[in-house]
């Protein structure tokens, strides 16, 4: 009697372990599959960018002939370099300005209490529900009077990206909310003005969110197609990479520009991805913190 009992216990024990091992094997297989699917476009992009034999779509992945032809053409025959510089400049400027706007907005809404604060937040919530790009009709008109379109579009776009960026205060406000209020109070009792509280106490503690905001600001111009297309209007000198490269895949151009698009895609993806992966930690903090706080 006793013996069989022991055996039974042993068996189930082993069984649980084994079943977990099987479980984990299944999970690993799924994860590898997922990774392949998610990495496929990236690998495809890189591989096809080295394809020399044909400049359009070939319907197969592996190049028959490897070479840097597409990259050379990219910089020699097109304005890509100009677009790249444009976008880079926009990225840096947007990162700086947007950070100032967003941080001051979110700091005030999170830490200071004043008349009309709730109303202000509600108003911004409601404003955010308008399809914002409709404002571009007017902004285009005004900017074209001011000369901030076409080849000067990057300047106009920096303004557009930054001006209303205060409305995107949610994530960083969520972060500020987690810093205990008693720190502010202690500093104020210690003799600090509100301004000193801001830059001597809160800012040093807000490093993760500052980096997150800078990262977001830097990335925005690289991915923006919609707003940019309003101000640029086919003017090559003022294009960002998105608008510039978009045309290459149109029905008329795809057969001569497809592989070049891939090459350009690789060139664009490298700096952005590098910056992003280096600062990944802060991005993850921002995303998770923001979601938890709502």
């Amino acid at each position, binding site marked *: 009697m006793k013996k069989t009992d022991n055996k039974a216990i042993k068996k189930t024990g082993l069984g649980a372990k084994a079943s977990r091992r099987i479980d*984990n094997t299944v999970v690993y297989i799924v*994860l590898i599959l*997922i*990774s392949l*699917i*998610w990495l496929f*476009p990236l690998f*495809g*992009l890189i591989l096809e960018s080295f394809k020399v034999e044909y400049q359009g*779509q070939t*319907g197969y*992945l592996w190049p028959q002939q490897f070479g840097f032809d597409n990259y050379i053409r990219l910089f020699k025959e097109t304005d890509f370099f100009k677009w790249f510089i444009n976008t880079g400049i926009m990225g840096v400027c947007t990162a700086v300005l947007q950070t100032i*706007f*967003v941080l*001051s*907005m979110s*700091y*005030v809404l999170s830490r200071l209490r*004043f008349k009309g604060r709730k109303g202000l937040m509600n108003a911004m919530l409601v*404003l955010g*529900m*308008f*399809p*914002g790009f*409709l*404002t571009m*009709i*007017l*902004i285009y008109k*005004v900017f074209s*009077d001011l000369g901030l379109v076409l080849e000067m579009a990057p300047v106009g776009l920096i303004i*557009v990206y930054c*001006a*209303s960026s205060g*409305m995107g205060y949610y994530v960083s406000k969520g972060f500020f909310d987690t810093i205990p209020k008693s720190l502010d109070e202690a500093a104020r009792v210690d003799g600090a*003005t*509100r301004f*000193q509280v*801001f830059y001597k106490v809160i800012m040093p503690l807000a490093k993760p969110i500052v980096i997150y905001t800078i990262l977001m600001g830097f*990335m925005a111009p690289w*991915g923006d*197609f*919609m707003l940019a297309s*309003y101000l640029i209007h086919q003017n090559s000198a003022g294009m960002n*990479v998105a608008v510039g*490269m*978009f045309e290459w895949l*149109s029905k008329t151009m795809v057969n001569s520009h*497809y592989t070049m698009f891939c090459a350009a*895609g690789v060139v*664009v*993806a490298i700096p*952005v*991805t590098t910056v992003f992966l280096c600062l990944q930690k802060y*991005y*993850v903090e921002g*995303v*998770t913190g923001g*979601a938890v706080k*709502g």
Partner: protein
Amino acid sequence: MKRLNDLDYLKLNKFGKLLYKLKLFLFAIPVFFKNLGLKIFGAIKGFGLGIKNSVSDIAYTFVKGNWAVKLSFLIFGFGNFYYGQILRGILFLLFEVVFIGYMIVPSGGAYWLSKVNWFQNGATVGTVQGEFKYNELYDTDIWVAGDDSVKVLLYGLLTVIFIIAFVYTWRMQIKQCRICMDITAKGKKVKSGKDDLRSLVDDQFHKTMLSLPLAGILIFTVLPIIYMVLIAFTSYDAAHDGYSNLFSWVGLEHFNELLDFGKGGIGLAFGEILAWTLMWAFFATFTNYFLGMFVAILINKKGIRLKKLWRTVLVMTIAIPQFVSLLYVAKLFDSSGIIGKLLLDWNLIPDSMLAAKQFSLWQNPISSKILLIVLNIWVGIPHIMLMATGILMNIPQDLYESSRIDGATGWKQYSKITLPYMMFVMGPYLLTSFVNNLNNFNVIYLLTQNNQLINTDIGTAGGVSVCETDLLITWLYKMTLNSAESKYYMASIIGILVFVVVAVLSLIVYNVMPSTRNEEDYK
């Protein structure tokens, strides 16, 4: 409806509980709108009361004030000067001078105001039509510029805002006179300019910090939105662009087009596109949500190694600018793309589609919509995965331990602990992500623009051809960008409608969501 008390509620069986909750929800909707109405009514009443109080306060100030205060009813800041607030006085006075100057100079405020013809049906915005006139010098017709309606309306609007600001400032400086009067009556000292400057880094610090971002929002969001709303009542389109042809006020005339349900009618187009937009947003949000959570749980499962690697692989796709990855992926599914070709070679494209010469998945309404949702999973999962990972780590481990002791395992733990916790924490995010998906321009436009599939039911609406996969936002985008056919007035009417849809949806969802009502439940 009768509310059950807690004990009675607990007596109900599962089905009864569900029914009860559903009933509660349904009954909450009218109550919600009633409360909304009451709130709006209260706000109006409060505003009226505020005006009344203001008037009596102004009257009091005028009657009791000394000569300087009385004078400052005409000359801004005089009261401030009298009470020693030089800085404020100068600012007020400066504002008045600038305002009056702006209003009376040639082509200043008064000039623009006279040209707008506010809301007079049929009247043009601007009064002088530009035209070709014979010019003796050149011996040919040349263009003599008239008014530009766009500018007239803009400057008119700016002037109105300026006037409102002027009235407000007038009221403010009278209020300050009153405050100064009260303070000196008590024998105390009023704030000096130095105090004012000092308070800008202290108790008024929010004003300093907000000035820049708020100015940006006012100029680049609020003002253009008001402008767009005005445009909805005009005939502003490519033919009446305001410069070569003045546009005019038409009142609600264009709103009638919303009722046009014939082919190419706005009503039909709006209905169909809205239906697909809502469907898209629903599927895009929930597929991402559940699958993303699933992936997060897989990665965070106990005993799985290389967690960081799996995460990084997914996060990498966030880093690549969307237009690169999306455009590339769209091409993969093309008839000559790698995957598209594979599907053809392996005979995976249904015969019906082949017969219709639709070689690519993009060329069929249903398959292209499904493909969009599937590809959107590729785009969205990494975000959700990251967020869910953060939340998973926040779930107190003792919840799992105690549930294990209570006998729960695997699926039970997931459905009774993980899922409710996630739902609670991510509720607000789900709402924002739903709204974002309603307006998800990038995914739709970049994936489909080079493979347009015209919606044959609608054809052309609002001056642009409508695609099967168009969302309201891409439709609007085309309507405003394509300069030859642009119907700006229609774009702004639809923009207003989009706003109404989004606002109503979010308000309802926001009000029934548990996380906004019981904030402390899971803390």
